[in-house]
C-alpha cells in the first residue's frame, strides 16, 4: 500500500511540475521520428535547427525509430498513448496506417505551402507522390554499388546484368534479406521491360522466373539486414557488389572517400516522407512545423546535406552544393537526367498486396 501511495504522490508531483513548466515558458517539445544516421542529420541541419531558431518555444526531440514506424504507431494507438508527433515513413506503410485510421488525412493545398510562383502544393509535388495521409520529402533510390578496387580498371561493371554475371565479374554480392528490389532486378536482368516487371511478378510463373534468376548467383550472395551493413561489407571488401540506399553509398564514397561506384542502371526509386499520427498532443504545433518544413526552400536545403532528391518540382532549381564538401549535388541525385535513364519506380500497391507471401517465399529461399 505504501508503495502505491508513494508512487501516486510521485505521479501527482510530476504532473504538477509538468503543468507548472508548461505555464512558465510555454515550452513545447515535438518528438519527430526518423531513420537516424546521416539522414536524420540532414533533417536536423535543414529543418529542425533553423525552425527552433525561429521558434524559441519549441524543442525538437529526435527518435530514430522509423525502421519500425508502423509497428510503433500501431502499438501507441492501441495503448492510447501517442507520444510521436511526426513520423518519417515509407509510402506503403503510410497507406496501411492511413487505411487503418492511425494517421491524419492531409488536405494538401490547405496544410502545405504553395510554391514561390503560386503553384498549389498538390501540383508542385512530383506526380503520384502525395498520399491521402502522406507528405513526401525526398526521392531516394536503392542502387547497385561496387568496389572499384575489386575489378581491373578496364573491366568495370556497368549494368544490372553485370551484377548477375559472376563469370566476368567475380566476387560475392550483398543484397537485402527481403524480396523488394531483388525480384525486380532479377526480372530486369532476365530481359523483362521495366514497365512490365510488376505485371510479370503478379503471376506465379513470373515469381518462379525471378527466383530462378536469383538462383544462378545464389552461392555468391550474402544478405544484409541493416542499411549500414551494406557500405561496411563493401568497404571491407567482403563483397564486390552491394545493394544499398543511394544516400548512404554517397556518404561512404564522397564523405569517407571509399572507392565505390554506383550503377544507376535499374535504380529502384521510391518516396519517403512525413505522416502525422492521430491522437497526438501537439497537432497544431506539428502542422505549423510541417507547413514550414515542406516548403520549396526547405526541401532544397535538405539536398545540401544528403544526396536525396527533393519531392517538389520547384525545389529542383535550388539544389546547390554540398554544405561541407562544396561539391555540386546535382549529379549525385537519383533524379538527375544522367542517372534517371532506366529507373524502376517501386510499386507500393504491388508490395502491400503480395509482400506477405513473397517475403515468406524469399525467407524460405534464403534458407535452402
Amino acid at each position, binding site marked *: 500500500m505504501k*508503495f502505491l501511495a508513494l508512487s501516486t504522490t510521485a505521479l501527482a508531483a510530476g504532473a504538477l511540475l509538468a503543468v507548472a513548466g508548461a505555464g512558465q515558458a510555454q515550452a513545447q517539445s515535438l518528438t519527430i521520428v526518423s531513420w537516424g544516421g546521416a539522414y536524420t542529420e540532414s533533417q536536423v541541419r535543414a529543418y529542425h535547427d533553423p525552425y527552433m531558431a525561429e521558434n524559441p518555444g519549441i524543442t525538437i526531440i529526435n527518435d530514430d525509430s522509423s*525502421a*519500425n514506424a*508502423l*509497428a510503433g504507431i*500501431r502499438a501507441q494507438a492501441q495503448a492510447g498513448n501517442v507520444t510521436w508527433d511526426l513520423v518519417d515513413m515509407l509510402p506503403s506503410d503510410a*497507406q*496501411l496506417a*492511413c*487505411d*487503418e*485510421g492511425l494517421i491524419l488525412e492531409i488536405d494538401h493545398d490547405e496544410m502545405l505551402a504553395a510554391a514561390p510562383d503560386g503553384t498549389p502544393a498538390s501540383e508542385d509535388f512530383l506526380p503520384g507522390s502525395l498520399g491521402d495521409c502522406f507528405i513526401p520529402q525526398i526521392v531516394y533510390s536503392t542502387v547497385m554499388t561496387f568496389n572499384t578496387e575489386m575489378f581491373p580498371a578496364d573491366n568495370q561493371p556497368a549494368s544490372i546484368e553485370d551484377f548477375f554475371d559472376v563469370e566476368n565479374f567475380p566476387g560475392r554480392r550483398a543484397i537485402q*534479406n*527481403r524480396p523488394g528490389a531483388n525480384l525486380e532486378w532479377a526480372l530486369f536482368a532476365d530481359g523483362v521491360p521495366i514497365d512490365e516487371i510488376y505485371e510479370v511478378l503478379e503471376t506465379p510463373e513470373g515469381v518462379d522466373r525471378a527466383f530462378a534468376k536469383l538462383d544462378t548467383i545464389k552461392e555468391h550472395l*550474402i*544478405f544484409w*539486414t541493416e542499411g549500414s551493413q551494406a557500405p561496411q561489407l563493401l568497404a*571491407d*571488401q*567482403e563483397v564486390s557488389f552491394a545493394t544499398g540506399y543511394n544516400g548512404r553509398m554517397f556518404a561512404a564514397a564522397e564523405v569517407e572517400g571509399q572507392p565505390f561506384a554506383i550503377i544507376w542502371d535499374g535504380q529502384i526509386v521510391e518516396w519517403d516522407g512525413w505522416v502525422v499520427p492521430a491522437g497526438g498532443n501537439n497537432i497544431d504545433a506539428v502542422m505549423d512545423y510541417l507547413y514550414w518544413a515542406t516548403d520549396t526552400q526547405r526541401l532544397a536545403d535538405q539536398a545540401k546535406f544528403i544526396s536525396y532528391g527533393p519531392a517538389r518540382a520547384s525545389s529542383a532549381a535550388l539544389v546547390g552544393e554540398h554544405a561541407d564538401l562544396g561539391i555540386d549535388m546535382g549529379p549525385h541525385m537519383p533524379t538527375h537526367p544522367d542517372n534517371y535513364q532506366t529507373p524502376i519506380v517501386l510499386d507500393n*500497391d504491388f508490395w*502491400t*498486396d*503480395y*509482400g*506477405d*507471401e*513473397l*517475403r*515468406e*517465399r524469399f*525467407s*524460405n*529461399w*534464403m*534458407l535452402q
Partner: protein
Amino acid sequence: MAQAEAAAGPAGGPPGGPMVTADGVPLKTSLRRAERRRKITALLLVVPLLAFILLTFIIPILEMLWRSVDNPALVRYLPNSIEVLQEWDGEQLPPEEVFAAMVEDLRVGQESRTIGQVAVRLNYEMSGARSLFTRSARSAEDFEPPYRDALIDANPRWGEVTTWRLIKREGRPLTASYYLSAFDLTYDDHGSVVRQDENLRIYGQLFLRTLVLSLAITLLTLLLGFPIAYLLATLPLRYSNLLMILVLLPFWTSLLVRTTAWIVLLQQQGVINSLLVGIGLIGDDGRLQMVHNWVGTIIAMTHILLPFMVLPLYSVMKTIPPSYLRAARSLGANPLVAFVRVYLPQTVPGIGAGAILVFIISIGYYITPALVGGQSGQLISNLIAFHMQNSLNWGLAAALGSILLAGVLVLYWLYNRIVGVDNMKLG
C-alpha cells in the same frame, strides 16, 4: 520467538497451568501472533517482486497466448456480411443479400477507417486481399444495386468462391490459422488443412535449426568451460582471481561491441584470415568463410554465453575437496579413472545448471545471429522479430513465440525426468 520466551521467563506462570507471558496472554497465542506477524512482514517484502513478475512476465505471456488465437477484425468490422454468410453453404457464389451486406460493411468501414484492419488480416491468408478491400471500400459509396455485379465489376476476385469461403472461415472470433502457418500448414480451397507449398515452408526448418545450433553451442561451452572452471577452482587464489576477472570481463563489455569484434576477426578480409594467408596456410583466394553463416553464429554465441557455463561449474567445483582425487589416486586409480569415476560425477549439478542456462538463453537469442548469422545462421527468434517489426503479423509472431515457449517447457520437463532439477546447482 526469543522475545516471547524471554518475556515468559520472569512472569513464570504457575507450575502445571498454561504458560503465560508478562501481560497475561497465553504463551501459545503470543507465539502464534509473533509468527503470523513475521509471515506478513516476509510477504510484504516479496510483494513488490511478485507484482513486478506479474506485470512484466506473467501478463505479457498470457497476452501473447491470447494474441496467437485472437481474431477480432472480421467479426468487429464486417458484422453484416459475417451474419448473412452463416446461411451460405459455400458451394456456389453467395446470394445478392451477402453482396449487399458487404457493400454496407465497406461503406461503414471506409467512413470509420476500419476497413484497413480487415484488409491486413485477410492479406495474411490471401495475397491481394488488401487492395481488394481498400479499393472496393473507397468506391463503395458509388456502388448501385445489384451489388453483386457492382462488386465483381470493381474487382473480379469478388466473383471467386474462395474469397467468400475465406471470409466465412475467418469470420470467427478465434482462429487457428496463425498456428497452422507456424507449423507450415495452410487451408486449401475447400477449407481442409494441408501442408504449405514447398516454397513457403520455413518455420519447421527454423525450429529444427534453432534446436540443433543451441545444442551445439551448449556442448561447445561445456567443452571450453569445463577446463577453465577447473583451473579457477584449483589454482591458488592469486591466479584464480585474475582468471576470474578474465572470465567476467566480457560481461562488462556491450554485447554489440563483442559481436562486432567477432565480425572484425572472422570476416574474409579480417584478422584471422589475413593471418592464415600471411603464414601461408591458405591461399589468398581460399579465404575461409567464418562469419555471415551458421559458423559465425556458433562462434560468437559460444563466446558470449561461456560465462553462463563457467560460473555454475566453478561454484560446484569449488566445493569438491581436492583430497578426494588424491585419495582415488592413492587407492590405485590412474588419473583418467580418478577423474571419470570420482571427480566428474560430483560436477554433474554444475554441468546440469550450466547446460540448461546456456541452452535456454541460446534458444531465444536474437541480436547476435541477426548480425553474424548471414542466412544460414538465423534462429527462430529472428523471424519472430521480423514478424513483430516488419511484416507486423503479430498473431503469427505470438504463435511462433508460444510454440517456442511450449518447446522449452517440454525440454525442461524432459531434462527434469532425466537429470532432475533438484540435482542442479546454480551457485
